[in-house]
């Protein structure tokens, strides 16, 4: 693979394989994420979407294959994992906020400790982001005192506070009230408008269809089908994709 081709994508996966014990969770997964695009990973629970995101952030060590971030192989054992993670923001399904810190401390932890941003500057940016997500009044609260939807928005702000090169979103709306889903999705839409590169695992098919430049359907740890949202949702080629989308549609989520 030439250096030139690697440079063109923010994230690139090649033949990634991941097993837990004897179970193969990801098999020969290839993925390319171009700058300023949104990639949606869809598929049933347990199809490997979350694992794929965790591998991209080196939270899971892959068994085989390779992953590049901005043309640099991050799965090379010689790579500095912390340096890689500094450039990637992650929002988890279960928020994963630090319960012993206030909202503001949660958000400013990484900018201050990892990126060396001055306290005043870090807090200013945190407040600005909180304001934008409608959480301006919650800066001093502790996470356990917020609703699930509020916690998830704080988690998004925490990921954004370090101005990541790539944002990984793992089912971020799975636990939100319908009206909050809209709010959070507006945030993601805005981020796309600002050119943020994102990979998101989601069950919100309508949103995936609207916002994603590329849609990947995972099934049994394999990327069974991929293409533009129009292709995958409009005229899926694989029987399994059609079946999955039909089930989702029956459940009223498309």
């Amino acid at each position: 693979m030439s250096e030139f081709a690697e440079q063109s994508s923010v994230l690139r996966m090649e033949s990634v394989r991941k097993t837990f014990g004897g179970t193969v969770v990801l098999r020969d997964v290839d993925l390319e994420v171009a700058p300023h695009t949104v990639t949606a990973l869809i598929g049933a629970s347990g199809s490997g979407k979350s694992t794929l995101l965790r591998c991209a952030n080196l939270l899971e060590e892959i068994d085989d294959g390779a992953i590049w971030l901005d043309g640099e192989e991050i799965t090379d054992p010689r790579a500095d994992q912390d340096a890689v993670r500094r450039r990637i923001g992650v929002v988890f399904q279960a928020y994963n906020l630090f319960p012993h810190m206030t909202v503001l401390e949660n958000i400013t932890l990484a900018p201050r400790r990892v990126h060396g941003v001055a306290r005043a500057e870090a807090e200013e940016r945190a407040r600005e982001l909180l304001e934008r997500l409608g959480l301006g009044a919650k800066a001093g609260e502790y996470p356990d005192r917020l609703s699930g939807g509020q916690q998830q928005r704080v988690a998004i702000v925490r990921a954004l506070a370090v101005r990541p090169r790539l944002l990984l979103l793992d089912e971020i709306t799975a636990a939100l009230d319908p009206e909050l889903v809209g709010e959070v999705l507006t945030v993601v839409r805005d981020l796309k408008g600002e050119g943020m590169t994102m990979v998101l695992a989601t069950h919100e098919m309508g949103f995936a269809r609207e916002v994603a430049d590329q849609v990947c359907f995972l099934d049994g740890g394999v990327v069974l089908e991929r293409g533009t949202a129009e292709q995958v949702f409009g005229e899926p080629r694989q029987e399994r994709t059609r079946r999955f989308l039909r089930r989702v549609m029956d459940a009223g989520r498309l």
Partner: protein
Amino acid sequence: MTVVKEQSGQDNPGGTRDGHGAYVPSPRRIEREAYKRARARRATAIAALSTLGTGALLYLIVVNAPGWPRTRETFFNWEYAREAFPQVLEGLWLNVRLLLVCGAAVLVLGMLIAIARTLPGPVFFPVRALAAAYTDFFRGLPLIITLMIVVLGVPALRLQGVTVDPVLLGGTALTLTYSAYVAEVFRAGIESVHPSQRAAARSLGLTNRQALRHVVLPQAVRRQVPPLLNDLVSLQKDTGLVSIGGAVDAVRAADIIVGRSLNYTPYIVAGLVFVALTIPMTRFTDWVTARMDRRRAQGGTP
């Protein structure tokens, strides 16, 4: 672009394992693992070298100290060590028995006190207050004073049917003090379990007792193991204090020989015997907790 990859170039097309091509590690993986092995070997070599170097340095410093020949004679005399070892071992049997009996009693009593302190509801206020008073008092009272009061004070009462055996009384004193410590360890563990866990258990209709038994305590125990072990090792060493009532344990046995010979080697022997007793216990609990973690970690049940 639609890509369906059932078999990549790296897979062996002849294989049929679970419906896909049998997996063959890529050269990339083989290279990566070779690098990791090489790095592990290098780390081991560096660790061995630095350990050897540190050991040699310490040895040279001690051996070249001006008082070394004399110190060696007084603290590391082989003859005295040989003489002391069987007697120290015999004394150690008392420590071991005390440890086993007191340890079990402390765990039970400590757990009861901890549960008493975390009982909710106004009815239990006196129980909570009593448990709190108990821990406050016996944690604050120096162990040696508890021992003297129990071992020397109780026989002085000349009560009918109450033992005057210093070992039994000493064990009681140890249990009183260590139950207070261990109760606090248990309580901290119980309270460290996130309230949402108790809420989830109660919402399923479990009673407070059931929630504690099936949800809170199992999670708390994992975090309590290292501090519990700390207290157990500490208890093991403090069992020697029953010798103030006249019982002969490992330290006292060494003490007797030292008093006779004015050579300190028996102390070293007794110390090493205690360390030798602690290490397997630590390794065992490490193994148990590691096993608990492995079963819970991602990958155990994908």
